[in-house]
Structure formats: C-alpha cells, structure tokens
C-alpha cells in the first residue's frame, strides 16, 4: 500500500508485465465459467411448471410465513392434493412483504388463490375487479354463520372471500394473579377504573400497552368507539361518512385520555411482545390484545390465561360488539386454472380443512362451525363462545377503512395522541382535514 514516489514510477506500476497476457485470460476464463454456471441456474431457477398448461397445478399465494402456520397450510393443502389428485404450488411470502405489495401483486401475475382478510380492503379489491366472484362456492359451503357470510360479501352483494380462521380481541389476564389478589372482571368503565387504581396500589401496571408498530393502539380505539358510539357509527366513521370532529369521536378520545394513566408508560418504543411479557411476568395486571397474546406464554402457563370482553361504557349500547379479524382466501381475477382453483377454495372452506387446522394450530379459531372443535383449549372454547355471542363483529381498524387512511393518517395521529393526550381538538381537526383529502370519491 505504499504510494508511488514519482510520476514515472506511478505510470510504471500501472502497466502490468503482461498487458494482454495470462492474468486477464485466466480472469476471463473465470468469468466465463461463472457466467455459464449462473446461466444454467438462471434458466433452471425459473422453469418449473411452465409448459404443461391446463394444468393440474393450482398456485396458492400465502402470507403464512411463520413456521407454525406455514406447516398448517402445508397440511391442509396435502389433504386436498391427496383427495383431488391436483398439485398445489404454495408461494409463501413473509407476512409483511405480502401485505405491503398486495396492490402490485394483484395487478401483476397473482397466484390463482391467495390469502387475505375480510373487511374494507377485500370489498375494495372486489369492486376494482381484482378478485373473482365466489358466490357459486358459497352455495356449496356448509357450516358458516350469517355473520361470516356477511363478512365475505362485496358491495355488490356477491361473495368474494372464503373465511377460514379468526381471533377475537379481548382483555387478557393471569388467573393466578387475579385469584391471589381477589380481582373480579369489571362490568363497567367505573369498575375498570377502580380495578386499575387498586392494581396500582398493589404495585402492578394495570394495563400493559405497546404501540411501536402503530397497529396495537387501533385495537384500543376500536373497542372504545364500539362501546361508546356503537357498531354502526364505528363502521360509518371508518367509511369516511362521519366527521372525526364530532362530539362522539371526541368523547372516545376523552375517555381514552382518562384511561391512559392506567396504561404502561413509554408505549411507543415497545413491541406488543414486550408488553405481553410484562403480563406473563406478572408485572402487569391485564392486556387488551388479540388471542395471539398466548404465544408469549409457555405451554404450562396457557391454562393460567383468561380474558373478559371490554366492559360496557354506555348501557344503551352494551358490550356485545368486538373486533374479531377474519382471515381467509380469495381468488385472483384471471386464475390460470379456474375450475381447479374453485375446487381448492371449496375445500379450503370445508369442514375437513377446518379440522386439520384445529388439530394443528392452537392459536386460532376456525370459522366453519361444522368443524370438530373438541380439540380446542379452554381458552379457545371461551373465545369461540365470545365471538358466537357477539351481536356485531368489526374487523379491526386497518381492515375496516382505507389502508391509505389507516397507515398514513391514523397511525401517526394515534401515536401523537398517546404522546400528548391534551390537544384532542387539534388532533381531530387534523385527522378530519386529511380524511377529506383522501376520501374524495
């Protein structure tokens, strides 16, 4: 690495002894070799099922990238491959990437069948012609309640979605902690506040809370809005039909501001796992989250986990609505082998597929009521009962409204609120202004 001293030396060093000689040749040979090797790879890496069209292969785009759910999908699909003689090519893409690229994905060359959620976005894709009508399959499906059918229906009254699993949001707690301290599940907001105060006295953080990723706080907003203003107002607000500056919305945030002191502090840097661990480690008293909170508990601790639905705030509205996001499948607009894709979807919605899911995945509930649910844990059974008794089911804020509104307006706004709960009026008029620029049609 010594530096050249003179210009002559510098130039001399630039010219290697063999200007066009061996070195370059061997270099080229190496390059050619690699290119050849990669060439075969490039071509081979692509091929696969091209050619033999009208095909016995159906492609299935899946966002189930976690090991456990991925395995469940594989098992469900196996069952179908054996019974139908068709081949299913599962294309797994990690959950986040799949969701972020969905628009491009559906407009590019989507898989015949793909995983998605019920709610606004499902209806939106249906309306824009990016998904196929599945009404004929619904005529063949059995075991679904009217609520699930409604959740699968597009704006035009046809079905575009086959629901498979769902999970409710509720307030979770550890039975052992509550028994030891003699806590009772609260039935009203006042009881909840009193319970929180008692927990504080007992040295517990009353409500575990995390919102680093932006979405968990939506759950809190949803349930407060459902309890204070009811399901219909919530859905209209999500659809952009109600004003965010109304007294009703303001009351939601006022109530939330009153509850914030009971929540775990510094929530904006915490992931929900970390919050769930504070519940698991008995540092927090309760946690409003989806059923998946159980993943942070070991197998022995599962029995110690229990929940109650968020208490009533307005007696006229009651406490029977809740968030219970539904996952399922849709069919792309022009599947390569439509008839077989429909067969697959029919199977995915069947009791058999649901049975496979129940046997293999303890962290979720199956949508098909015909499924054999004797394998459910006590918690799963209770959760299924809770959803079964619900009068209205919302899908969660980011599934019930426009995604551009949810991600670019609501997330920053809720985080702003958590940071500084005082200026609710200013916050709401900012949301309303942005809403007007997004909900233009």
């Amino acid at each position, binding site marked *: 690495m010594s530096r050249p001293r003179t210009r002559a030396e510098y130039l001399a060093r630039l010219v290697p002894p063999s200007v066009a000689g061996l070195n370059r040749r061997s270099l080229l040979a190496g390059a050619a070799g690699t290119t050849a090797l990669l060439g075969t790879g490039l071509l081979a890496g692509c091929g696969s099922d091209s050619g033999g069209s009208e095909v016995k292969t159906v492609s299935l785009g899946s966002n189930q990238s976690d090991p456990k759910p991925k395995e469940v999908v594989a098992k469900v699909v196996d069952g179908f491959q054996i019974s139908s003689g068709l081949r299913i090519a599962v294309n797994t893409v990690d959950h986040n990437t799949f969701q*972020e690229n969905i*628009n491009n994905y559906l407009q590019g060359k989507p898989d015949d069948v793909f995983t998605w959620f019920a709610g606004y976005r499902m209806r939106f894709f249906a309306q824009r012609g990016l998904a196929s009508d599945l009404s004929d399959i619904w005529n063949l499906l059995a075991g679904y309640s009217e609520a699930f059918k409604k959740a699968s229906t597009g704006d035009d009254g046809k079905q575009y979605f086959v629901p498979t699993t769902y999970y409710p949001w509720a307030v979770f707690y550890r039975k052992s902690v509550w028994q030891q301290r003699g806590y009772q599940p609260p039935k009203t907001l006042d009881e909840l506040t009193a319970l929180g105060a008692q927990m504080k006295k007992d040295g517990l953080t009353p409500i575990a809370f995390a919102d680093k990723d932006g979405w968990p706080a939506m759950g809190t907003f949803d349930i407060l809005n459902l309890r204070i203003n009811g399901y219909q107002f919530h859905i209209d607000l999500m659809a952009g039909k109600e004003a965010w500056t109304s007294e009703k919305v303001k009351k939601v945030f006022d109530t939330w501001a009153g509850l914030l002191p009971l929540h775990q502090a510094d929530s*904006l*840097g915490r992931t929900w796992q970390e919050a769930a661990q504070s519940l698991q480690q008995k540092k927090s008293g309760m946690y409003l989250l989806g059923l998946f909170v159980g993943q942070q508990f070991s197998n022995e601790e599962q029995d110690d986990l229990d929940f109650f639905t968020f208490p009533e705030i307005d007696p006229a509205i009651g406490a029977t609505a809740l968030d219970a996001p539904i996952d399922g499948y849709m069919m792309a607009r022009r599947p390569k082998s439509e008839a077989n894709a429909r067969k697959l979807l029919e199977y995915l919605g069947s009791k058999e597929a649901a049975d496979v899911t129940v046997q293999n995945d303890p962290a979720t509930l199956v949508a098909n009521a015909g499924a054999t649910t004797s394998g459910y844990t006590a918690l799963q059974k209770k959760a299924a009962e809770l959803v079964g008794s619900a009068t209205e089911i919302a899908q969660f804020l980011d599934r019930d409204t426009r995604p*551009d509104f949810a*991600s*670019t307006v609501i997330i*920053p706004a809720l*985080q702003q609120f958590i940071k500084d709960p005082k200026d609710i009026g200013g916050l709401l008029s900012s949301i309303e202004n942005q809403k007007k*620029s997004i909900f233009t049609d």
Partner: protein
Amino acid sequence: MSDLPPIHADRAAPTPATATPTDGRGRRLRLLSRTDRVVVTLMVLVPLLLVVGLVWLPATATVVLSGTNWDGIGPLDEIEWVGGRNYSDVINNYPPFVPAVQNNLLWLAALFVVATPFGMYLAVLLDKEIRGSRFYQTALYLPVVISMALIGFIWQLIYSRDQGLLNAVLGTETDWYGDPDVNIWAVLVAAGWRHVGYVMLLYLAGLKGVDPSLREAAAVDGASETTTFFKVVFPVMRPINIVVLVVTVIESLRAFDLVWVVNKGRNGLELISALVTQNVVGEASRIGFGSALATLMLLVSLVFITVYLATVMREDRR
C-alpha cells in the same frame, strides 16, 4: 446501495482543454473507421438506454403522476388530474411533513458536523504508518459492509427499552427508539457509526494519493503537523472533499432503511423517503400524493447533483 462515489480523477494526467489542437483525445468521429464508429455507438448506447429507460423515464413519470390522484390500480387512461392539489396537501395538510424535513436537515447536520470530521480525523491518524493500522481500518469499515437494515436491527439489541443492553447497563428506563425526543438521536448514532467508516475510507484513499513531497516541503518550512494538514494537504484533496460532501448530503437525503427498520419512519423518526414509501409502496397506494413527495425529494436531490456535477466538470476542464 445508498452509497456513493469515492474517488476522483487524476488531473495530473495530460488532459488539456478541449480546444487545444495538439490534444490527441480530441479525435473526431470521422477519423474513426466504420467498425470503430459502430463500436463506439454501441458502447455508449446500450448502457445509456438502460439508464434512461429504467431510471430517467420512471423519474419523469413520477413527476407526471404527482399531478394526479391515482390509486395505482386500473388502466392509465382513467387517471384523474388534480393539478397542484397534492403539493398543497403535502405542505398544508400532512402533519408528518414538517418533522420529516426537520429530521432530514438534522441528519445532514449530524453527519456533516460530527461523523464526517471524525472519519477524516481517523483517516489522518491511520494514514501514518503505524502497526495494526489494518486492524483499525477493518474495524471502522465493517459497518459499511453490512446493510442498513441489519444495522437497524443490531442497534435495536442495544436500544430496546425493556431488553436492551444500554438500559441494563445504565440502569435507566429510557425509551431509546420510542421516545420521540430521543429516538432521532439514537438512530443518528447508528447512522454516524456507519458514516464514519465510510468517510474514513474515502479520505484514506485520498491521503494515500497526496504527493508526499508536499508534506516534506511543508515540514522543512517548519509548519506544524496540523498546519500542514489544513494548509497543504486538505486543499490538495479538494476532489475527495467534494465527493465526501456530496456523499454526506445524499446519504442524509436518501436515509431510509434505518428508520424503516426501527418503526417505519413514524413517531419522531419521520424522513421524507419514509413518507414516500408509506404512501406509495405499502398498501396505502396514495400514488399521486406519494409522487408529489417523491418529486420534492427529486428536486432537492437534483439541486445537489447539479452542484456536484458542475464542480466535477469544472475540475475536469481545468
């Protein structure tokens, strides 16, 4: 990928002005044989088509899209024009915009005032022929080899409020990545950590290229080491200085991966690039609005790019 040009031209080589008649490089095209002309054309045209087609055309299209309210779905002829509304919305009706601009500027200032001089200082120290220099260089340069996304994650292990090393060691409960007053600084430490190595390497290359006789002459004149550096060496490295300056500016403007990994550029970590991504790439699909943000970003980049190129060209002609 967000990295930029080290290196600069060797202006000592015989490159007189374009017009000089004796300049051998000034060959006209017609002096070339026909085959040579075809070869020259192909050598330029193929890469040019690639760059124009895949970079400049999309860039132009983005500028056009910024005048629409397209949601990214459906045929292009259904696009509705909204004129400058996206721009006025960006400025008047988008709370994250102002913090994003502030953060980008802060990013620039931090890299420019702290990380760049420190990298330069380390390069000067390492330029001396000392033992273990290669080890030090490697240690400092390693972060540059690792992708920004990994860097974001690696620092998360240190910053996490409940499980991170920093709070465990200090016994504090600071919410490094979550507290909007703190997190931008925490992220800047990580960004600076990487930038220092980068700048160090660039200056190291620059210093190795400095003619040692210059320093010897200065030493003979009795100038101190520091004086020599600032009065003699630093000015000679002007081309490298410009590269470093531009690298720093562009890195600050294009900074993205780090905040994206931390919290998708929200809650105190707003950056323009992250806002563009939130609007355009994700499910949100506010293509028109996001394109307006992107266009603003393009414009600012172009200002710096022009300054940079103008300087480079001027140097070239010298």
